C-alpha cells in the first residue's frame, strides 16, 4: 500500500516535472517564510517592543524598520503561497487532462466486444469521477511537502533558541500526526461509503427518470419513491457518520496548537525565570505553534485522498491496460467501382452467459447466437434477411464490418478475410446503418460526413445534399434554419425517430459504399417513403464514379421491402433455414411462409371466425379467479 502510494505520487509528479519543481519550490519558500515570520516577531519583541515600552530611545527609532522587516517577509510568504497554489493547481489539471486523453484513446481503440463487456456508466465514471479521485491527492501534495520543509526549519530555529522550549513546542507534533492518522483511518472508509451511496443514488435516479413513462403507466410512483428514499436515508446516515468524525476531529485539531501554546508559555516563563531566554523567544515559539495549525492538516488531506486515489487509479489502469485493438491486417480493399462479393464460411458466434467476462473457448456457459452460417452474396445484389425476433439477424449483419468477430469461421469481402483488411478501407466500403441511429452533437453536415470541414477527401456539400435527397430527408434539412450547418442537439434530440434514421442512412449513402447493410434501418420511416428510398438505391447510382449498385444486405419485416430484394435469406435460431427468391421460399419453406403470410392468414382465420357461432376459445387461467 505504502509503496504503491509513493509510486503513484512519484510517477504523477514525474510526469509534469517542471510544474512540480515550481510547485514544491514555492511551497518550500512558503514553509521557510512561515517560520521566518514567527522568528522576526520574536526578534522584534525582544529588540524593539519590550525595550521601547521600557523607555529605550534607540528601540523607538527601530519601530519602522521592524514593521518593514515584517512586511518584507509577508511579501515573500504571500508570493510563496501564490506560487504553491498556482502550480499545484496546474499540475493537478494537467494530470487530469493526461488521464482523460489516454482513456479516450483507449475507448476509441478498443473493439466492440470490449465495449459490450463494460457498462456505459462505468466507462463514463472512469473518465470523470475516477480521474478526479485519482488526481485529487495531487492538489494538497506540494503543500504537504512544503510543510515538511517548514517542520525542519522550525525545529532548527527552536533548538537554537532553547532545547526546553523546543521540546515543549514539539511535544504536540506527534499527537497531531497521530490524531491525523486516526482521523483518516476513520474518515476514509466513511467517505468511501458515502461516495458509493451517492453513486447508487444517481444510478437509481437515472434509471427511474428514464423509466418515467413506465412508472406512470403502471402507477409505481410509490415503489420508486421508497426505493429512492431507502438509499437517500442510508446516505443521510453515512453523511452524519462522516460528519461526526469531522465534528470531533476539527475541534481537536484546533485545540492541540492552543494547548501547545499554553505549554510553551509555562515552560517559557520558567526558562525566562532561569535566565535562559527572553520574552521574544516565548512569543516566537508560541506564535509558530498557532501558525502550524492549518499546515499540519495538509498531511491529513494527502493521507485522506490517498486511498481514494489508489482505487481511482486502479480503475483507470484497468481501462488503460486492456489489450489493444483486435488484430487487423493491412490488405487493401480496392474501391473498384462495383458492389462487393460478401461471403460467410462456417460462421458461428457464441457469447458467454455472463457478459462481463471475455469469452473463453472452453467456457461451457455460453449461448449460441449464430451457427454454421454459409452464405455467398453476389456483387450488386440486394439480399433481405428475414427471421423471427431474436433469430440473430443483427448479430449476422454486424459481422460484415467487424463490429463483431465470429468465434468460428470467416467473413470475406471480395474473397478477403475482413480480419486482414485495413480498418479504414473496411469502414469506407462496408457501411452499416443500425436499428437505432446514433446522432452526434454536431451539425447536420458533420453528422453526415463525419469529417472535419478542411479534411482532405471530405464529401462536398453537393454530395451531402445528394445523399440527403436519396435518404428522403433533404426537405427536413432545408427547413432547418441553418441548413447543413444546423446543430443537432445531444443525440439528435431535435429530430424525430424517423428523421434520425434517415439522417443515419444519408451518412452511409454519402460514402457510396460497396456493401450497404441496413439493419431494420427504416423501421420508423413511413412505408411509402421507405419504398422510395429502397427503390432509389438501385436507380440513383450516377456520376462521381458512383455508377454502380452496392451489394445491399437488409434486415426487414415489411414484405413490401422484402419484395424489393433479389434474394431472401431466412434465419431462425441462429441458423440459415433457407435461401432463394421470395416465391421459392414461399413454396418450400414453411417457416418463411408463416412469417411472410402471417397477416394474410390471420385475416382469413378471422373471416372464418367471424361466422356466427364460432366464439374464440377461452384462454387465460388467471382470468378464472379474477
Amino acid at each position, binding site marked *: 500500500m505504502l509503496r504503491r502510494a509513493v509510486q503513484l505520487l512519484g510517477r504523477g509528479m514525474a510526469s509534469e516535472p517542471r510544474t512540480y519543481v515550481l510547485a514544491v519550490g514555492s511551497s518550500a519558500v512558503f514553509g521557510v517564510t512561515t517560520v521566518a515570520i514567527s522568528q522576526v516577531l520574536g526578534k522584534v519583541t525582544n529588540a524593539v517592543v519590550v525595550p521601547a515600552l521600557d523607555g529605550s530611545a534607540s528601540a523607538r527609532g527601530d519601530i519602522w524598520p521592524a*514593521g518593514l522587516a515584517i512586511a518584507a517577509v*509577508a511579501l515573500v510568504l504571500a508570493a510563496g503561497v501564490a506560487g504553491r497554489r498556482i502550480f499545484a493547481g496546474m499540475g493537478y*489539471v494537467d494530470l487530469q487532462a493526461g488521464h482523460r486523453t489516454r482513456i479516450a484513446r483507449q475507448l476509441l481503440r478498443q473493439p466492440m466486444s470490449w465495449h459490450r463487456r463494460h457498462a456505459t456508466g462505468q466507462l463514463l465514471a472512469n473518465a470523470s469521477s475516477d480521474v478526479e479521485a485519482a488526481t485529487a491527492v495531487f492538489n494538497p501534495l506540494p503543500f504537504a511537502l512544503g510543510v515538511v520543509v517548514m517542520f525542519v526549519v522550525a525545529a532548527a530555529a527552536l533548538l537554537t533558541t532553547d532545547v526546553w522550549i523546543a521540546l515543549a513546542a514539539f511535544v504536540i507534533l506527534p499527537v497531531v500526526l497521530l490524531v491525523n492518522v486516526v482521523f483518516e483511518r476513520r474518515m476514509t472508509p466513511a467517505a468511501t461509503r458515502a461516495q458509493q451511496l451517492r453513486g447508487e443514488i444517481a444510478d437509481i435516479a437515472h434509471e427511474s*427518470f428514464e423509466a418515467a*413513462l413506465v412508472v406512470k403507466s403502471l402507477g409505481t410512483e410509490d415503489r420508486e419513491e421508497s426505493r429512492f428514499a431507502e438509499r437517500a436515508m442510508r446516505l443521510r446516515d453515512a453523511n*452524519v457518520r462522516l*460528519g461526526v468524525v*469531522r465534528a470531533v476531529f476539527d475541534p481537536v485539531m484546533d485545540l492541540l496548537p492552543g494547548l501547545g501554546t499554553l505549554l510553551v508559555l509555562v515552560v517559557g516563563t520558567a526558562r525566562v525565570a532561569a535566565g535562559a531566554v527572553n520574552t521574544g523567544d516565548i512569543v516566537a515559539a508560541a506564535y509558530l505553534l498557532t501558525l502550524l495549525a492549518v499546515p499540519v492538516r495538509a498531511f491529513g488531506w494527502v493521507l485522506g485522498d490517498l486511498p481514494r486515489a489508489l482505487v481511482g487509479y486502479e480503475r483507470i489502469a484497468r481501462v488503460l491496460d486492456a489489450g489493444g485493438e483486435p488484430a487487423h491486417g493491412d490488405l487493401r480493399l480496392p474501391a473498384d467501382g462495383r458492389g462487393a462479393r460478401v461471403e460467410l464460411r462456417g460462421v458461428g458466434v457464441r457469447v458467454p452467459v455472463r457478459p462481463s467476462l471475455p469469452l473463453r473457448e472452453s467456457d461451457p456457459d455460453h449461448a449460441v447466437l449464430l451457427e454454421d452460417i454459409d452464405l455467398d452474396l453476389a456483387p450488386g445484389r440486394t439480399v433481405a434477411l428475414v427471421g423471427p425476433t431474436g433469430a440473430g439477424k443483427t448479430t449476422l449483419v454486424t459481422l460484415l464490418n467487424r463490429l463483431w468477430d465470429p468465434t468460428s469461421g470467416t467473413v470475406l469481402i471480395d474473397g478477403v478475410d475482413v480480419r486482414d483488411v485495413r480498418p479504414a478501407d473496411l469502414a469506407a466500403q462496408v457501411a452499416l446503418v443500425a436499428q437505432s441511429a446514433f446522432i452526434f452533437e454536431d451539425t447536420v453536415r458533420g453528422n453526415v460526413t463525419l469529417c472535419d470541414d478542411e479534411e482532405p477527401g471530405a464529401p462536398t456539400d453537393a454530395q451531402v445534399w445528394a445523399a440527403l435527397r436519396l435518404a428522403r430527408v433533404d426537405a427536413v434539412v432545408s427547413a432547418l434554419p441553418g441548413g447543413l450547418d444546423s446543430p443537432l442537439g445531444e443525440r439528435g434530440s431535435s429530430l424525430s425517430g424517423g428523421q434520425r434514421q434517415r439522417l443515419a442512412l444519408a451518412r452511409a449513402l454519402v460514402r457510396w459504399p460497396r456493401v450497404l447493410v441496413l439493419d431494420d434501418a427504416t423501421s420508423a420511416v413511413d412505408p411509402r417513403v421507405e419504398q422510395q428510398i429502397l427503390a432509389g438505391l438501385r436507380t440513383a447510382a450516377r456520376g462521381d464514379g458512383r455508377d454502380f449498385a452496392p451489394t445491399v444486405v437488409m434486415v426487414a419485416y415489411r414484405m413490401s421491402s422484402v419484395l424489393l430484394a433479389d434474394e431472401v435469406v431466412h434465419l431462425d435460431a441462429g441458423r440459415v433455414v433457407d435461401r432463394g427468391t421470395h416465391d421459392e421460399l414461399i413454396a418450400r419453406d414453411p417457416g418463411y411462409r408463416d412469417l411472410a403470410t402471417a397477416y394474410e392468414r390471420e385475416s382469413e382465420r378471422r373471416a372464418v371466425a367471424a361466422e356466427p357461432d364460432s366464439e374464440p376459445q377461452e384462454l387465460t387461467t388467471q382470468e378464472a379467479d379474477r
Partner: protein
Amino acid sequence: MTNADTSADHTIGSSGTLGVWATLRRGVQVSPELLEGFRVTLLLAVLAACGRILVPIAVQQTIDGGVLASGGPDVTRVAVLAVLAALGLLLGGACAAVVNVRLFRASESGLATLRVKAFRHVHDLSILTQDSERRGSLVSRVTSDVDTISLFVQWGGIMLLVSILQIAVATALMAVYSWQLTVLVWLCFVPLLVVLRPLQKRVNVAYTRVRERVGALLGAISEAVVGAETIRAYGAQARTQRRIDTAILATRDAAVRAQNLVSLVFSSGVLVANLVLAVVVVAGTYLGVAGALSAGKLLAFLFLVQLFTGPVQMATEVLNELQNAVAGWRRVLAVIDTPVQVIDAGDAGVVSPRGPATIELRGVGFAYPDGPPVLSGVDLTIPARTSVAVVGATGSGKTTVAKLIVRLLDPTAGQVLLDGVDLRDVRLAELRRRVVMVPQEGFLFDATVLENVVYGLPGADAVGHEPAVRVAVANLGLTGWLDGLPQGLATPVGQRGDRLSAGERQLVALVRAYLAEADLLVLDEATSAVDPVTEVRIARALDSLKHGRSTVTIAHRLSTAEASDLVVVIDAGRVVEVGHHTELVASGGIYAAMHRSWVSQTR
C-alpha cells in the same frame, strides 16, 4: 412531442427566480428539520467561539503578569493560568464538537427530506413537464445539486458560522485591550472585504465556465462510448479523438484560469493578514510608548489577528461555495415548486371499482402548450370488453388519444370519462391499476427478464411470481421466445435492456403490462418491432382478453385493426371514421385506402 414548444407552465422553473433569502426561507419550509434545535446550537457555538480567545488572553496574562511581572517571572501564576485556559479550551472544543454534530444531523435530515420530495415530485409531474427537461438535468437536481448543499454545510457552512462568531468575539476582546488598534485592524481588513465581493463574482463566473467545459467534455467522451458502434462502422475514431482532445484542452485551460484567479485572491488574503501584523507592531508599539497599551496586550493582538486571518483567507471560497449551494438549492426547490399539471384527486376522488371499463371521450380537444390543436371535437365511446384499434397517419394525433385515455395528459377541452366519471375525479392510484399503457419503447431496468416483468406487481419477491409469469408468457404465445433466451427468465437484460433487440424489449414490456391485469390495456405501437408471426400471436392472445377487459391499440400495422371489434380512424386531429373493419373497407373512405396500401406492402 418535442420540447420545442412548451410554455412556462409546463417547464421546470429556472434558477434566478428566488433571491438568496427567499431560497433559504423556502428551503426551510420544505425541510423543517433544518431549524430543529437551532437556538441551542447557536448558544453552544457562541461558547465555542469564546474558547478560541483563551490563548490570546493567556499570552497577554503570561507576558504582563508572569514574564514581565514586577517581581520577576512568576511561574506558578502562569502555570495556574495555563491549566485554567486549557480547561476552557477543552470545554470550548467540546461545545464545538456538539455544535458540529447537531448541525450535521439537522442538515442531513433536512436534505434527505428535500431529496426524496424532489424525486417524488419529478414522477408526479406530467409527461409534458418531464419531457421539457433533459433526464440528466432532472437527475442532477436530486443528486449533485443536493450534494452541493450537503458538502457546503459540512465544510463551508460551519466555517461561516464559526468565523462570524470568532471574528465577533475577537473584536470584542480587542476592543477591551485597545480600541485604537481594533479600529486600525478593521480598517486594514475592510478594503479586502470590499474587493472580495466583485472578486468572488469573477471566481464564480470562472468556475461556472469550468463546469460547462467539464459538461461538454463528458458529453464528448460519452459519444465515444454510446456511439462506439457508429464510430467504428464509419472509421470516425480520429475525428472523435480530435473533438475530445479539443474539449480536454478547453477544460484544462478554463480550470487553470479559475485556479489562478482563486490563488491570487487567496494569497492577497495571506498578504493582507501578515501586513496587518506589521501595522499592529508599529502602531501598537507607538501606543505602548504613549502608555495606552501593555506589551502583553500588544502581543495578544498578534494572536487575535490570527483569528481574522483564516476566515478572511477562506472568505472567497466559502462565499463561492455558498453561492453554489444556494443555486443548487434553488434548482431543487424549482422542481418541488413546479405545479403538477395532472393533479391526483387523491382521497377526495371517486372510488373506481375494478371491473369492465368503459371509456368515453366527450368533445375532447388537445393542444400542446403554444402549439396548434392536435385533437379537436373528439367524441368517442369505447365500450367495455371491446378491442379498439386507433389508426391514422403519422402526426394525426392518435398517440395523443392514448395518452389522454390513460391520463398522462389532461384534455384542454372536453372530458375523458371512465365508467361515467371524469378521469380528473378518479383517484390516480386506482386509475393506474385499472388502465395500463404499454408505450412503444418500454423502458427496461438493468435486471433480469423476470425482475422486469414483475416490476408492476406488489411485493418485492420476484421469484414468487415466477409461475404466474410463465402462465402469462404462455398465454401470449411467447414461451418459444423465452426458452430461446440464454438463461430464460433469469437472463440479464443489461442497461436499458440493451442486451435484447428492440423487438425483444417490446415483448418484455408487453408481458409486464399483461401481468398488471388491468381492466383496460392501451398499446401504443407496442409491437412495432416484433416479427409478424409473433405479432399476430400476441394480437390473438390480447383479443381473447376482451372477455374481461378492453384493449385500445394504437397501430401502424393494420393487422391489428382487422382483428379489432372497432376501428377508429383519426385524421388531422379529428375522428373521421368509426366502425368495424369490414364496414369501413366497404364504405371506401380513408380507412379503405389505408388498408389497401397496407395490404400491398405486406403481401
